[in-house]
């Protein structure tokens, strides 16, 4: 080996030492803990809204053609039916989701609806493939890259429809374990009631809160506010612009809906009781 070659030869230990020395060149500074937490809270609050705005997932079915199997006050109160057991994929809602209608109303002669679909967890790749295809047929796309990633995971989609238009996915996620919200935890997204564009006025607020939450206050940009309270066993067929409901197959919390009066838009939402 020539002297020149020797000079240019580095061991992996040398590389590690060079890296360690180079890493010392950074100014560490003080950890910006509060900025990180503020940023984290903003991310959490924005997570769903951003997902809705950037994906603008349009579902193939219209509100008028949906069948709502999971009615408030019924199976929804019994929690998730996806516990391990001998239940068939159909019984576990792997290929057809449980649907719970949250709210509906009429504006300018057109009916709007908000509902949540919960797809049971596939147990193997075959079930996952079929579920992926079934989701595709209904026009929704889960938060995974490929069908195999659905195995063992529950997916949910909250959606809204307006008139005969196509449905819009407001919030969605796919996860192995549903985080149970507690206390004043709240996750929400605001979307337009009738349009799908990212600049459309965000009047419709959909989100979820802890099972213990008795009141959610949605504040609007003009200073007004709307209070959502548990709807009890009232049917969603009854027009309501603000309420809290359990959702069939979703054990992580209850869901709420608030609709802003015309002319104003969403500011924020908090659990107030």
């Amino acid at each position: 080996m020539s002297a020149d070659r020797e000079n240019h030869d580095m061991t992996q230990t040398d590389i590690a030492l060079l890296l360690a020395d180079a890493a010392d060149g950074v100014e560490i500074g003080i950890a910006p803990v509060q900025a990180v937490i503020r940023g984290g809270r903003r991310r959490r609050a924005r997570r769903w809204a951003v997902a809705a705005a950037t994906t603008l997932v349009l579902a193939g079915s219209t509100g008028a053609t949906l069948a709502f199997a999971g009615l408030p006050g019924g199976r929804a109160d019994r929690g998730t039916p996806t516990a391990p057991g001998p239940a068939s994929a159909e019984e576990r809602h792997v290929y057809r989701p449980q649907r719970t209608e949250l709210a509906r109303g009429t504006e300018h002669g057109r009916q709007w609806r908000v509902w949540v679909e919960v797809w049971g967890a596939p147990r193997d790749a075959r079930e996952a493939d079929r579920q992926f295809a079934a989701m595709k047929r209904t026009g929704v796309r889960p938060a995974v890259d490929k069908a195999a990633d659905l195995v063992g995971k529950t997916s949910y989609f909250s959606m809204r429809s307006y008139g005969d238009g196509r449905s819009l996915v407001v919030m969605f996620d796919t996860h192995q374990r549903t985080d149970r919200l507690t206390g004043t935890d709240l996750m929400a997204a605001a979307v337009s009631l009738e349009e799908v564009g990212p600049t459309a006025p965000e009047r419709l607020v959909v989100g979820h809160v802890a099972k213990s939450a008795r009141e959610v206050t949605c504040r609007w940009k003009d200073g007004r506010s709307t209070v959502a309270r548990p709807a009890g066993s009232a049917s969603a067929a009854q027009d309501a612009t603000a309420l809290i409901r359990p959702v069939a197959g979703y054990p992580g919390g209850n869901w709420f809906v608030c609709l802003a009066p015309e002319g104003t838009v969403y500011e924020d939402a908090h659990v107030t009781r």
Partner: protein
Amino acid sequence: MGDGKQTRNEEFQSFVVGRWPRLMRTAFLLTGEQHAAEDLVQSTLEQVYVAWRRVGGADDPEAYVRRVMINAHARRHRRRLREFLAPKDDSGLVREVADTGDRIAQADDRSALLEALARLPARQREAVVLRYWEDLTETQTAEAMGCSVGTVKSNAAKGIAKLRAIPGLADMVTHGGRK
């Protein structure tokens, strides 16, 4: 909820304070630039905060943090922020490796190493930094990068080979610039 949430917040704050220096160093090697490193670490920790309820109680929160950071780094790279990653002078052109004869100051040495790292493709840089700075096993590195052990081996080997091929960098070692 109050107490549980308060405890989680305190745990998270301790985690951030404790891990910040190490994460900054890793991010600096990945990005090659102070502000980019701060930005990468801060956005990584913000994402960790969102998932802290799950992550904080996990056996190995570090593994989750590394995965988030590498994903964030890869995303930035995919967004073609390559110019953001490579140190530049005022002309906006990536600098040539400095003349080895003039290399005395340690800062210059560091700069040369960072330039050499910045020239590596992102996946090779990630593999080199995780294996030889973070001192992770190939399996841990594969988990952080979301790829197979074989891919880690291949990327690390290529990255190291390219670093070795840079004459100025090898001289840094042979001229006693490192302990």
